Structures are given as C-alpha cells and as structure tokens.
C-alpha cells in the first residue's frame, strides 16, 4: 500500500508520509510559492512529474527520478501555428488560443510502452511523449476534428482534457474526457476518434443539444483497471456508469445528498465500488449543509453509503476539485484535499478519516506515490 502522498497546491507541491497506523505527517515541499496544477506518479519506473502553471511565465513540466529530492525541468507540448486566416471562437465568441495554457491531465502508457506519456491540456489539446516527457507531439487528429470546435470551457476558461484512460488491455485504445466536450475514444493510438456518450444527457443544454456528445460535461472519468469494461463518470448533472466498455452509459439517480461533484475513483479490482464527493450543484458548489462527506457505492450505484466519520460535520465549505481525490493501487487507502487547504486520509476505504492538514494552500490534485 502507498505510504506516500503528493499534494499539488496553489503554492507548492507538498508531500506526506505514513509514520504508522493512522499516523501521517507532512514532511517536505517542492516548488514552494509556485502553482502546481497536477502531479503524476508513474508506476512503471517510479518517476514523478509535476506540472506547474507559472501564470506570467507559462506552463512547465518537471520530472524527478529520486522521489522529489531533485527535479529537472523537461519539455512542454507546443500547439501548431494556426493556418492563415483561421478564426476559432467558442460559443461565447471568445477566441480559442492555439497555445499551451495549462496541463490538466497526465497519464502513463502501459508497462509494455516504456517512456510513453499522455498529456491533456487547456485548450483541448492531447499530446504524447515517447521519451518520458522530454519531447512532445500533438495528436492532431483530435485537434483538427470538426467537433472539437464545439467544445466549450466548462471547468476553466477554455475546454480542457482532464481525464485520459489508457485501456489496460490495449495501449493503443485511449479515451479522453473533456469539460465540456464529451468522451472520445481512439482505437488506433490517435489516428481516428469517435464519441462515446450514448446515454448521457446535459440538462443545462438547449433541448435539441441535450444528448449531443459535445454538450456533455464529464467532470472526471475513470476506467476500472481490473474490469475495464466498467467505467464511471462524475458528470456536471449526475453520475453515469458504463458496463459495456463505454458504449452506453446509465445514469445513477437519487443519490443523496447530491449527484453533483467533481472527482470519482473506482476500486482497482471491484468495478462496482466507487467513491464520490458530493456538493450542492452547480451555482453554489459547497458541501450540503456544511458537512464534508464521501459517497461510496459497492453495488454499481444501486445504493450509496455517505461516509463522514472523522470529517467536519458543520460549518465546513470545502470543495474538492476533480483531481483532488485519489485511491491507492490496492484500493484500500483514500485521500482528498480541498480548496480551503484541508486534506483527509482514510486507511479503510473511507469508513474513517483522519485530518492530515487544515491550512495548506488550495489543493488542486492528490496522488498516492
């Protein structure tokens, strides 16, 4: 089980370590003062990757091969030059820039694909690297896909790829989820793409676009590693599950206290077990009744348990971003961090929680290492 936790925050990358049963402590910080948007721990070789968003100076990527003791700045993706006379605007009339704004997802290839990394970015770019991030190339088929122009800024000022699922059975089959722009899957490592949103609905869209792939706003998508026909999505207006390899999606309804939220994680071997962090939709985005809770289903969404032992149950307004909930590789330990700098850890699948931190900067992402 993972004894190390990485916390990507607005003001640095903090790490925590388990000292004993139920005893975790913060122990180090890298990039103190800098905006760390995301971290990837590569299970193939143990490398850590940290995506930084420097604002004025742009998005950068750093790699550590010694578990954070030292970091090396590596390459970043580059968008192509727009064709002459190109006009690309979103539904609000805003120009979609052809330049790297932010990393929003990082995913390793399979063990059989050493060195292969995938990166999803704002605005709506997908890139791969075959040399552990030293150099990158854009998946132009997705960027040039006509439907891509219908993607819209959902969770950020531009559309972004926040989830990348590399199929554990076939590393050339890759799924991406976009806020907001639906779910797209390639079977041929990025040469062609198809929408996989059948069964989803977007209740915020005009009536004729409710079922359109590009209208869908998945907040986070995961595929069960041990049962890869099962997928889960925390969507803007609900929770959806697929048991036929993303071909069709079924909405999970009547989830208390709310079906709204951002993150979802699925157990690595038990596809019917998944965790969510509910919040009041979407105009408020705070925990219901000021209580921080975690929802867990063990039966594919037929029922949910609302877990709260050890979590604040009053006057708490922590929001949890889509990458800020993680589950360790054995499916036993959970951790999540909030916009108000709190971090909680569970060692028993969410039954009980302990507080790791209460005063960190806003937490963007959480990763077991």
């Amino acid at each position, binding site marked *: 089980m993972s004894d190390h936790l990485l916390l990507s925050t607005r003001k640095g990358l903090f790490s925590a370590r388990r000292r004993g049963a139920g005893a975790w402590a913060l122990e180090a910080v890298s990039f103190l003062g800098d905006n760390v948007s995301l971290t990837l721990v590569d299970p193939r070789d143990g490398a850590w990757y940290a995506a930084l968003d*420097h*604002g*004025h*100076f*742009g998005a*950068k990527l750093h790699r550590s091969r010694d578990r954070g003791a030292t970091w090396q*700045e590596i390459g*970043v993706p*580059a*968008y192509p*030059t727009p064709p002459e006379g190109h006009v690309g605007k979103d539904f609000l009339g805003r120009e979609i820039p*052809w*330049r*790297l704004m932010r990393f929003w997802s990082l995913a390793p290839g399979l063990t059989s694909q050493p060195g292969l990394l995938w990166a999803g970015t704002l605005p709506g770019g997908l890139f791969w690297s075959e040399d552990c991030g030293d150099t990158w190339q854009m998946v132009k088929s997705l960027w040039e896909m006509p439907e891509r122009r219908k993607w819209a800024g959902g969770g950020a000022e531009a559309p972004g790829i926040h989830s990348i699922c590399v199929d554990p059975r076939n590393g050339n089959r890759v799924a991406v989820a976009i806020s907001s722009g639906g779910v797209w899957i390639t079977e041929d490592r990025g040469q062609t793409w198809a929408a996989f949103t059948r069964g989803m609905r977007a209740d915020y869209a005009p009536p004729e676009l409710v079922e359109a792939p590009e209208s869908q706003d998945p907040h986070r998508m995961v595929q069960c590693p041990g049962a890869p026909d099962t997928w889960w999505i925390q969507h803007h207006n609900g929770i959806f599950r697929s048991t036929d390899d993303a071909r069709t999606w079924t909405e999970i309804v009547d989830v208390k206290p709310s079906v709204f939220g951002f993150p979802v994680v699925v157990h690595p071997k038990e596809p019917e077990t998944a965790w969510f962090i509910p919040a009041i939709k979407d105009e408020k985005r705070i925990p219901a009744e000021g209580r921080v809770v975690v929802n867990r289903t063990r039966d594919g969404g037929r029922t949910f348990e609302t877990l709260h032992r050890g979590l604040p149950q009053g006057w708490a307004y922590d929001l949890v971003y889509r990458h800020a909930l993680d589950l360790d590789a054995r499916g036993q330990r959970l951790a999540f961090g909030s916009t108000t700098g709190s971090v909680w850890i569970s060692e028993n699948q969410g039954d009980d929680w302990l507080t790791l931190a209460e005063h960190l900067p806003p937490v963007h992402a959480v990763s077991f290492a």
Partner: protein
Amino acid sequence: MPSVAFTQNLQRHVACPPCRVAGATVQESLEAAFALYPQARGYVLDEHGSLRFHMAIYVDGVPILDRHGLSDPVTEAGEIFVMQALSGG
C-alpha cells in the same frame, strides 16, 4: 551592443543575468540572449515566438509595439528590459 536584462522574478526559475548581445531588433537581441540562456525562452515567449500575454518588454523605457514579431528596433546602446506585466495589489 544592446543590453538585455530580465526581471528578477525570472531568476528564481532560470538564471539569466544581464548580458550584452548583437542585434538590431528586439527579436534579434532576444535570440542572441536565448542562445546564452536557452531555458529562458519558454518563460518569455510562447510556442509561436510571441511575447507571453502577461509579459512586457521595454526598449529604453518604452514598451514595444510588436508583441508577435518583436520587430521593434534597438540601437547599438539600447537597453532592453524584459518584465512581468504586473497588475493588482
């Protein structure tokens, strides 16, 4: 030869002390400076060679006009200053 100085805030990420370089335009001068400090390029310019949105360049105290082509002229004794376009408190 023109001088190029980068904001102190950049030094935290990339060491790029002031330098004197050959160049008749901002673009030529920066290219020469980036030859000395290659890592600094991506902090100042985007992937298309344009000045990053929240960055500014002054030549002899005057902000440049061409943020994309960086074609503003620089004299032999010109002073180029690369800075963050600070806003807020």
